[in-house]
């Protein structure tokens, strides 16, 4: 099973769409410092007001999460995961797979974990590349705070992938699954930072998994395990629940 998982991960990693996802992330890494070369005064004032403290690093982290990584998480998980098992069924491979000693829910879980691993590889790759590039290009860049702040975001990206897979498990139509995934993830990500804009809603927005991925933005100066562990744990549990729900959805799928 572990061998099969590894081979499936490698096969997904080699797909053309994965390479295009990587190219999009590379473009994001290269373009953000250019975007932040001369921020206008009203943007700096707004960032200072929303996050309680200003400075170039806070502005950089806001733009990196809101403009680059959140947009990527709105699209890439859907592309990676909203067709799993459905594609095999539609191209007629599922009947062959059904004859193997591997139940449909287990096969779904295997494919979903592969998609999550590819999403995690892309996400971590972008942060590591950014770590090197931003250190040289972004004034006031703090590598450790950057990595710490992006760790919950990685868990949010993995949850988004599991969520897209779960939609596929229940909707059972590739086009509808992708559309629902795009609309719901777009909505969740669009609302993910709303607690910073309207502090009265801060606690309410914690029900949004995507808000958990961006929580670190509010406390960049003193990030520690107490700030990072709870959202990561919550997102891990939600991811497992999403895979379990998706696996239950494919239980009765006909080849």
């Amino acid at each position, binding site marked *: 099973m572990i061998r099969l998982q590894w081979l499936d991960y490698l096969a997904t990693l080699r*797909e*053309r*769409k994965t390479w*295009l*996802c990587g190219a*999009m992330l590379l473009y994001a890494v290269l373009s953000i410092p*250019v*975007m*932040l*070369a*001369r*921020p*206008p005064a*009203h*943007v700096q004032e*707004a960032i200072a*007001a*929303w996050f309680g403290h200003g400075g170039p690093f806070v502005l950089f982290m806001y*733009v990196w999460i809101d*403009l680059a990584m959140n*947009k990527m998480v709105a*699209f*890439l998980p*859907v*592309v*990676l995961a*909203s*067709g799993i098992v459905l*594609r095999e069924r*539609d*191209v*007629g491979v599922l009947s062959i797979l059904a004859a193997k000693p591997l139940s449909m829910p287990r096969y779904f879980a295997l494919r979903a974990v592969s998609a999550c691993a590819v999403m995690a590889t892309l996400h971590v790759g972008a942060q590591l590349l950014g770590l090197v590039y931003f250190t040289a290009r972004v004034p006031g860049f703090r590598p450790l705070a950057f990595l710490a702040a992006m760790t919950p975001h990685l868990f949010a990206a993995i949850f988004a992938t599991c969520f897209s897979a779960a939609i596929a498990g229940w909707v059972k139509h*590739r*086009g*509808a699954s*992708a*559309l629902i995934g*795009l*609309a719901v993830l*777009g*909505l969740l990500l669009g609302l993910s930072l*709303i607690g910073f*804009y*309207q502090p009265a809603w801060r606690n309410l927005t914690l029900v949004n998994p995507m808000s958990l991925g961006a929580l670190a933005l509010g406390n960049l100066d003193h990030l520690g395990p107490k700030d990072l562990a709870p959202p990561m744990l919550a997102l891990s549990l939600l991811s497992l629940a999403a895979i379990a729900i998706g696996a239950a959805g494919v239980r009765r799928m006909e080849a």
Partner: protein
Amino acid sequence: MTETASLRDYFLLEARHAPRRAPIVAALVGGLGVLGTHALLVRFPARALHFLEQAFDLRGLASVLLINDLMAAYFAPYFVGLAGLLGAIVTAREEGQLEVLLAKPIHARVLLAARVGPILGAAALTGAAVAIATGLSILPHLAPGDMVSAAGALGGGLFLTAFALLLLALLLPLLVRMRDAFHALLVGSLVWLLPLMPTAVMIYRPDVYEGSAILRSAITLPSLVWHDAAAAWVGPLGLILVAPFCALFVRIAGHVLERTDTR
């Protein structure tokens, strides 16, 4: 005569099988999204609304609401159309249906026109429904001296619907050569995102547009809000004018499909 009649029957048959549920649901969700955004934004602190005014060079609550609404009028028709096109062309090839269909005595360009026409039409109706919702929902927020109007909001929504259709039509020659629906979805998403980049630049690097007001008006989204009176008539006109462009690109894509290995 017989051939014309059978072709008409074929076009009707394809239209009958075109996806219907997704455009209806997308129109409803788009309309509800517009209302939901209004309900949220009016409860934002004045400071956050002022930031949006400064970032997009706007004046008044109605214009801030409208700039967000326009995104729904761009998103809904584009992705409903894209999902339909992927199902009709790329998925059909993946599943081996296209090869079987093209083995029938029917030209690739006719098959493409029959399948794509209803999908683009449904996407146009979805966008028009969201644009109407935008125009109507902005009415309670209008104040004397506002830079926007209900007609301008409707026109802006229709313009973005026309733009979404144009992008879909431009994508067609590429889609007929693709073999992986999710690779095509990613390419389509990229094509949707690219025109929004000049607007993002406007927020964080307004200096890029210093001294080039015409360029700023030509390539950024808030232009539809700044030129409200023009948007009121450019939008409907754009929706009419995009139809021949779509027909042209369906034809080009048909020629590409005829020269492509459908396996």
